[in-house]
């Protein structure tokens, strides 16, 4: 499953981080690496972007930016 497909309240572990170069650096910055626990906590009124709980911080990410990040649902 991909990060952007997670439903509200879903939790998962990041399996593979793939995105274009600019985005990947941003994601690494906030600590989104393989093995990180993520939880989808918010949806914006138009469903995109969504916000995820990553290492204690709530981070909004666009679906397009995380559509290639694989997660294993817990």
């Amino acid at each position, binding site marked *: 499953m991909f990060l952007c497909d997670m439903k509200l309240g879903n939790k998962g572990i990041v399996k593979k981080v793939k995105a274009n170069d600019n985005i990947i650096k941003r994601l690494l910055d906030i600590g989104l690496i393989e093995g990180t626990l993520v939880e989808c906590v918010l949806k*914006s*009124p138009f469903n*995109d*972007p969504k*916000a995820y*709980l990553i*290492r204690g911080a*709530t*981070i909004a990410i666009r679906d397009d*930016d995380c559509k290639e990040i694989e997660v294993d649902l817990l």
Partner: protein
Amino acid sequence: MKVVALAGNPNVGKSTVFNILTGMHQHTGNWPGKTVDNANGIFKYKNINYNIYDLPGTYSLMAHSKEEEVARDFICFEEHDLVIVVCDAVCLERNLNLVLQILEITDKVIVCVNLLDEAKKKKISVNLKKLQEILGVPVVGTSARNKKGIDKLLNALESKKFNPIEVKYDDNLETAIANILPYLEGKTKNLNPRWVALNLLSYDEKLYNSLKDYLNFDIFTDEFIKNQLFNIKREIDLDIVNTITNSTVKKAEEIANKVVTFNNKDYNAKDRKIDKILTSKLFGIPIMLILLMVIFWITIKGANYPSDLLFKFFSWLEKYILNFLQLINTPWWFSEILVNGIYRVLTWVISVMLPPMAIFFPLFTLLEDSGFLPRIAFNLDKAFKKCCSCGKQALTMCMGFGCNAVGVSGARIIDSPRERLIAILTNVFVPCNGRFPTMITIITIFFVGINSNNIFLSIVILTLLILLGIFLTFLVSFLLSKTVLKGIPSSFTLELPPYRRPQFLKVLVRSIFNRTIFVLGRAIIVAIPAGAIIWLFANINIDGISLLNHVASFLDPFAKAIGLDGVILIAFILGFPANEIVVPIMLMAYMATGQIIEFSNLESLRQILVVNGWTLTTAICVLVFSLCHFPCSTTCLTIKKETGSLKWTLVSILLPTIIGIILCFIIKQLSIFF
């Protein structure tokens, strides 16, 4: 004098710490990206002078956006004796990431774990002593907002115990570093050679250029090193950036696990509940609108009374000033200039413009402090994405409500240069604090009626006007993205900070005070000469007609075609140094050329305008033109500074002006049918 840098993730309280140490008033706000430029201040502790720099927040030293670059370049390349890394106790793990990266550059680091009060409330405890042992540098705990722990931070400034841990990377990478190190010996000035080696291996163009400038030589011109690097890179065949980050993040995780205890796993449940409502499909957008209207309501309602009082007071005083001037036999022209020119423009700005400005501004600051602004960006990002721009533009627009110049420099938080430029060019469609009172006055005089209590109608009209501005922002962003600034939307990641209770009293007092001083200062610098000039214009005659009339009648045909008149156009043009003088100039010009009407209440203002040919169409056109008023001189200078280009500055002036002209022209033409 010792130089100290305050670094850290965004929104962890760096500026708050800075303010306490220096006694200065750097702006703080509960959202990531408030500070976008270095600020420095001086303080003294135990007879040593410190020069401390407040840096913009950054998640890592691989800068992506302009404001992060500012911070990165300072930490890496400026001379400093100490770096204080401010951390968020609630989210320590992610913060340690940056700590570890900075420790790679310099040993002289003090870790300041801030927001301990918030952590305590959320039942999160941090073992500071253990953290200090692990990191090998001084660690102090603070709650900067409550001024707790600052003494410990000051004490730590004298510490001599710096023995930081080193992150060990993948074996291959370590070998690679070891292989390069000998070649760098003696060539890296004050920089840690290991860090330089790491960066040569992970090669980032921008950082490399800064490095080149700092070291004054291009390492890659050294064929030998270049070949070495090339070989090493080929041999280890690793995604180096990924490897480095992975190791740092894992190390941070390991440390955090040892020192942080969560006694309530669900510590942000309350924030989540609020978020669910504020970002819901049903309520998200309406709540934002209602909030805006409530702010307008408080502003208009609150400004009404003081405004009226000041107005009456100044017109009462005017008679006495005139009498007094007569008494001491001042020449007529002098008292005219003084009273009809300077005094009236100045008192107008103070009585009519100042109260709404002084009320609106603190309200917005409260909103900023609560943490609501990033949610606006979150809610609206999809729309911005459709226009191929970035949701953070919503944050720059919010700043624009306070002051367009701040909005323009705030655009640094946007990663992509293209999207940043769009945000800069469209910021003017958000009416700034100086244009609000103009709009409110015209709406009150022309749409609602002065004595009517129908405040709701004013709010609705004002809100519609703001919505038009937002619509124009989207439209222009879209058009720019499809033409001169072609491109696809880049990325958007934004941290949504926890909600914080604003410090009501402090914010109110501080920002009302600041605004008042600021507006008064500007009124004195700008309104006085403007008042004098307009009086001279109106009273110097050529061929029996005043200069003002000459210019006005020259502009008239064009101005009339777009629903305005020559005088209004002159006022808008003269409003370049400060938007708040547009209406007073307009009135001054009308009064100087036409009938003398007693200038004692808002009703008389309405008469002045009506006698000079104002209709409903004129009022609408003035409102729209004011919404599209080209950026004021301060904003223009900021745009020039931020874009570094005269061309874009010119575009930023022409773009809204042309749109304003087109809109007003359409309105005028349509009005003929009614």
